[in-house]
């Protein structure tokens, strides 16, 4: 079976690289990028199955990336990475609870569960 392709996006280079490598060790085909703009370029040229996307990044932030990807590649599953959950935080009029997200620092068991669910949904 083809390995699921996962793109890890975070402006914290060490975080994104280590997380991508840990997922690689667990059998996924991973790549780390550190800017929203690069994420869009990869999503167009070599779309991954899943994107782990940091919510708060300088430049193009996670929300802008998410909304743009939804327009041209709605099949890509996106799991948001966020440092904290503010219950009032809303994304385009929707509550953060309506999205697939995981808190940073990441609990690996929880992340793997979310990834497997996203893969099921993607198939």
């Amino acid at each position, binding site marked *: 079976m083809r390995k699921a392709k996962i793109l890890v996006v975070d402006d914290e280079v060490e*975080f994104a690289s*280590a997380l991508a490598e840990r997922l690689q060790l667990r059998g996924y085909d991973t790549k780390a990028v550190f800017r929203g703009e690069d994420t869009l370029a990869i999503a167009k040229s070599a779309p991954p199955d899943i994107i782990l996307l940091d919510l708060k990044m300088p430049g193009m932030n996670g929300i802008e990336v998410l909304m743009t990807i939804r327009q041209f590649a709605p099949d890509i599953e996106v799991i948001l990475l966020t*440092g904290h959950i*503010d219950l009032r935080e809303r994304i385009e009029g929707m509550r953060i609870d309506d999205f697939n997200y995981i808190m*940073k620092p*990441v609990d690996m068991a929880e992340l793997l569960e979310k990834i497997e669910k996203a893969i099921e949904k993607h198939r």
Partner: protein
Amino acid sequence: MEENEERELRASQLAFIGKVLATFSHELKNHLAIINESAGLILDLIELEKSPAREHTDQYVKSLRAIHSQIERTLSLITYFNRFSHRMDSPLSTFDVNDAMEELFALLHRFTNQRKITIEKSLQRDVPAIHSDPARLHLLLYCLMQEHMGRLAENSTIEFRTRLSDNAVLISIIPKGKEPLRGGERSGCSDELIQGILSALGGSLSRKEGEETIRLPLGASPMRE
């Protein structure tokens, strides 16, 4: 300075402090996330790659697990700290009284622990959220807690209970312990301050046989300044 200007300055200062605390805790979480992933990667390389047994591998694993466990503890505290900081973002918000109390107790744990006072919680889990000022509720609870701590001897307990009654969330504060021989200390909060906070919250306070109960009506419209 005019009274209104003074009040505005105070409000701005509070909002500023809240912003700094929220940013600080967010940044700290990012740093911990990097430490966590880096330690996790080393652990994965040792455990998942099943490389031939090397000397000291057990010690590496033990140390990495200790790092992981300390990060978990720190994170839990930072999460409370971050939520506490965001309570000052706007004067009024809809929040769960139990959550607000849990974060206050977690952040004051070291303070109560040093005074050898145990905080006991009996929180009714399904109390509805209220629309009020959580930062002021924090200050009110801190004032009342400080007052009891000043009166109680070491190794005493203060119980906090929440429950829903007659369209209001009730918070009862029940001291359990003896008064110290040297006599109690007075809290830093004046009765006027306590009454002012209560009135801003649209709530009331009753005292009976050493117990205090704060009543926060669900439908109350807290005063806006």
